[in-house]
Each structure stands twice: as C-alpha cells, then as structure tokens.
C-alpha cells in the first residue's frame, strides 16, 4: 500500500480526538433539549453557555452574547449579509461592496440580494489575489451600508488587509462583515482590534464537526432573523441546538487559536517546501501572493493538464487534494477564484490546491513531490494541449 496523505484541509479537516471526546457525552448522556428544565436539559444548556464564552474569548469579543451558533459557515454568511442588508435597506442603504472571489456562500447570497433590488460592487482581487484598500475607498457611495470581504480565500489562500478595511469601515459608519472560515486558527484574529462587526466561522475547517458554525455579531449591529421559529439563540436563530456540535466547535476553536505563531512556522515550512518543489516542474506557477497567504495552503497550476485527472492520479497514490478545474467545480467553467485572478481558462483547468494541517509531516510533502512530477509527466505525454504548447515554444 501507498502512504496516505490528507492534504485537503481547506475542504475539511479530520475531527480531533479532543473534540470527539468532548462531544460524546452530549450525544449519549446529555441528550436533553437545552430548553427543557430538567437536569439533562439544563446540562446541555450550561454546556452551550460555556461554549459561547469560549468562542467569544477566542475571537477577542467583548461579550459572549455576541456569538450565535449556526449550522455552519454558509448559514453564518447568509444570515450576516441578508440580515444586515434588509435592515440597511429600510434606511435607504442598498449598496453592498464585496470581492470577486468570495466563497459562493457570500457571492450567491449577494446575487439573491441583487434580485431583490440591492446594488452590488465586487472589488477586483488582482493577479496577487488581494483586495486594494484604495479601490474599496473609491467604491464607497452615499448609500453603501455593508462591506463583506473574506479574511482568507479558500482556494488560493491569500489573506486580505482585514484590519485596514475594518478601520476604514468603522470610520465611515459602514457595517463590515468578514468570512473568516479559512482564517480561524491560521491568523491571529481579534474582532475588537480589527473593527470587525460580523464574522463567520465554521467548525469543520478546524478539526471540529461538520454542520456547525458561528456568527459573531457585535452588539449594536442589527440583523434580521434568517431562521424563524423557537426562541433559541435569544430569539435570533430558531432550532433546537446542536449541543454536541456546539461543544465540539468550542473545543476545536480553543485548540485552533493556541500557539498560532509557532504552529504557523511548521506549516509554512511544509507549504514552502511544497511550493519550491512544485515550481521546479516545467510550466508551473503559484497562484496568489507568495507571502500574504495562509500558512498551510498553496495553489499551483500546471500547463497542459486537466485538474480532475491529476486528482484521480493523486488519489490513486493515496494523496487527497483538490482543484479548480471545470470538471471538478461541477460547472462548465473553472473556478471563479482562478478566473478572478486573471488566469485564462486553459491554465485554470490545471490547478492543484494543497492544504496542510498540523498533522502533516515533511515526509508527506516529500511523498507528494515524489509522485507529482511523474503524474504530470504521464498526463502531459498524452495531452494534445501540451503537444501544442511545446510546439509553440519551439516556434513551429
């Protein structure tokens, strides 16, 4: 058998033992409804309160009641944006600024709002995958009520100037939301210092369970409900709480924000070792700024090959990774992120995203680097596109 290397931590992560251990009692003994008055209900309630304190603390929030638990990052994004937009609309503020390479949870939400009559400006992210503060300033109008810019991009890993954007929005009285799903545990985040009004996060990207996340919403920022029903989450988000998931999230985030700097050193070493090795392959390129990126994530394009066939071969060798090719994005076009940084379609089809976690080792990276060139060689040898690229190089 081959080595098994999980290098798709931007897609999701393995549940950690700490998290699982903390969750289990809430799936077994503490199964009571947190709204019930008997003890197993109240135990669950207390566990959720405690989790809320922990999450608030991990984000540097002033008060724990600024944290709302959701079903994940997508719901948090939908809620923050739709919830704030609908209140802002009543004040005549119907202009929202975002970026071209947001996650679909944000972009498709904005599309929906556009149909309701909102006006959306999507900022360019340039070749380096970074939003420019100047361009944000220029895009602001009288009726701009909300800015939503992701903390770190999920495909190419570039980290946006969030503190600068936050300071600017606060000064202008514009609500600022950030999707920090990929950034949590990788970048030091403090919602107060960074002037973040709303922040979305998700447990499954930080070794927590899938289907649970949170929205930080600063006291004083009003948002409409997205899910109406019972009185959970202080009447703001209905539905019997996912006690085990919420507890799992709190343990995951506690571990994720521990020693970020030291853990980043190790992950950066792995990442840079991968990037250096991958770029030795002919006709390859790194996507997004080399420095301003998540410590564990790299996205590289290889000309003349298609991403899905690359992933199938990697899987055949025991390596889990991802790509932004059309055939993996499930549409006719390659990923909107790669197109947003200006890659032509044919190059974007040949993309590979590798995202490490604390658990990866140098041996993992070396194994990827051993297998990758052989696969690319094999696919290029049978690629008429590669044949054409080589002919053009020779000037034929």
């Amino acid at each position, binding site marked *: 058998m081959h080595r098994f290397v999980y290098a798709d931590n931007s897609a999701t992560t393995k549940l950690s033992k700490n998290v699982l251990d903390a969750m289990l009692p809430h799936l077994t003994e503490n199964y009571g409804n947190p709204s019930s008055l008997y003890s197993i209900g109240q135990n669950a309630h207390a566990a959720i309160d405690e989790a809320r304190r922990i999450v608030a603390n991990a984000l540097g929030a002033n008060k724990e009641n600024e944290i709302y638990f959701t079903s994940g990052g997508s719901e948090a994004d939908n809620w923050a944006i739709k919830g704030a937009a609908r209140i802002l609309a009543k004040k005549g503020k119907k202009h929202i600024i975002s970026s071209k390479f947001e996650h679909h949870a944000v972009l498709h939400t904005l599309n929906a709002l556009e149909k309701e009559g909102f006006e959306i400006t999507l900022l360019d992210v340039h070749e380096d995958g970074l939003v420019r503060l100047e361009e944000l300033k220029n895009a602001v109008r009288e009726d701009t009520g909300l800015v939503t810019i992701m903390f770190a991009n999920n495909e190419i890993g570039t980290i946006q100037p969030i503190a600068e954007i936050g300071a600017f929005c606060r000064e202008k009285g514009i609500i600022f939301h950030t999707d920090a799903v990929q950034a949590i545990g990788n970048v030091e985040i403090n919602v107060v210092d960074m002037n973040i009004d709303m922040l979305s996060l998700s447990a499954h990207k930080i070794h927590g369970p899938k289907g649970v996340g949170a929205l930080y919403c600063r006291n004083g920022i009003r948002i409409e409900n997205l899910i109406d029903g019972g009185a959970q989450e202080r009447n703001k988000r209905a539905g019997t709480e996912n006690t085990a998931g919420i507890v799992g999230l709190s343990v995951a985030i506690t571990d994720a924000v521990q020693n970020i700097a030291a853990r980043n050193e190790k992950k950066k070493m792995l990442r840079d070792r991968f990037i250096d090795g991958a770029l030795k392959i002919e006709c390859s390129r790194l996507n997004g700024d080399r420095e301003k990126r998540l410590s564990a994530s790299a996205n590289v394009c290889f000309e003349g090959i298609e991403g899905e066939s690359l992933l199938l*071969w990697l899987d055949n060798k025991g390596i889990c990774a991802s790509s932004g090719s059309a055939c993996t994005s499930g549409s006719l076009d390659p990923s909107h992120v790669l197109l947003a940084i200006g890659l032509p379609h044919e190059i974007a089809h040949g993309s590979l995203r590798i995202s490490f976690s604390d658990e990866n080792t140098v041996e993992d990276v070396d194994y990827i680097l051993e297998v990758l060139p052989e696969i690319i060689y094999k696919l290029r040898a*049978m690629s008429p*596109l590669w044949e054409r690229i080589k002919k053009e190089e020779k000037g034929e």
Partner: protein
Amino acid sequence: MYTELVMDHFTNPRNVGEIADADGIGEVGNAKCGDIMKMYIKVENNVITDVKFKTYGCGSAIATSSIATEMIKGHTIEEALQLSNKAVVEALGGLPAHKIHCSVLAEQSIKAAIADYYTRQGIDPTLIVGEIHECCHDGECGKE
C-alpha cells in the same frame, strides 16, 4: 464516482499515442473548456487497422477515448461511424450524469479522423460523416 472499468481505462489507457503515418487525424474540443481529443487512424481496405489517441481532459474524457479506440479497432469505417456516445458510456458501465458531456468528444473525434481520412482520399466527407461537434457543450465553449 467512477466505475472500476472507468478507472481501469483511466489508469491504463489503451492505444495512447500517435501514428506517424496515420491515414486520418481528428481533433475536437478546446483548451478553454478543458477537453481536447485527438484521434489517429490507420485504414486498410476500409478497415481501421490501428488507432491511437491523445486526450487532454478529465477522467471521463480519458476513459471514453480509451474504450472508444478499443471499440473501433479492427472494424470497418461504417461500423466506426455507427459508434455512439451512448454506446461508449454503456461499455464503460455508465458515467455520472454531470460527466456525460465530457464523453461526447470520443464519438466526435473518431468522426473527425474519418472525415480527415476521406478528405485525404479526395472524397468530400460531409455527406458520409455528417456534422462534427467540435466541442462538448453545444457551442458554449470558446465563447467569451
């Protein structure tokens, strides 16, 4: 996602390569949409005696080109022209619904190679071969 047979053709594609003295070469698809297929055929007495392919594309594109070459090798041109995309997909034991469009290039590239063969013989291929779809997405590809 893929059947064992698809993965077998993907990892061990049959008849990969080029034929230096091919009697017909057909290329369809484009880089923009992520699939290009190139077929080389050798024809003797109306029979396809040898066939080779090169494919740039996803697993489905590679597997369909591979099995399609097996399905026409040793067969007459008329038989090869009968080969449908549906038959290719069935021979593979099926493809996921969203992958069917990646498979149509196999049929088209064979038609394109046969059309090239006729053209080289001084025969107008249009009536015999019919229309060739250069791309898998009904002309959506290549449009900006």
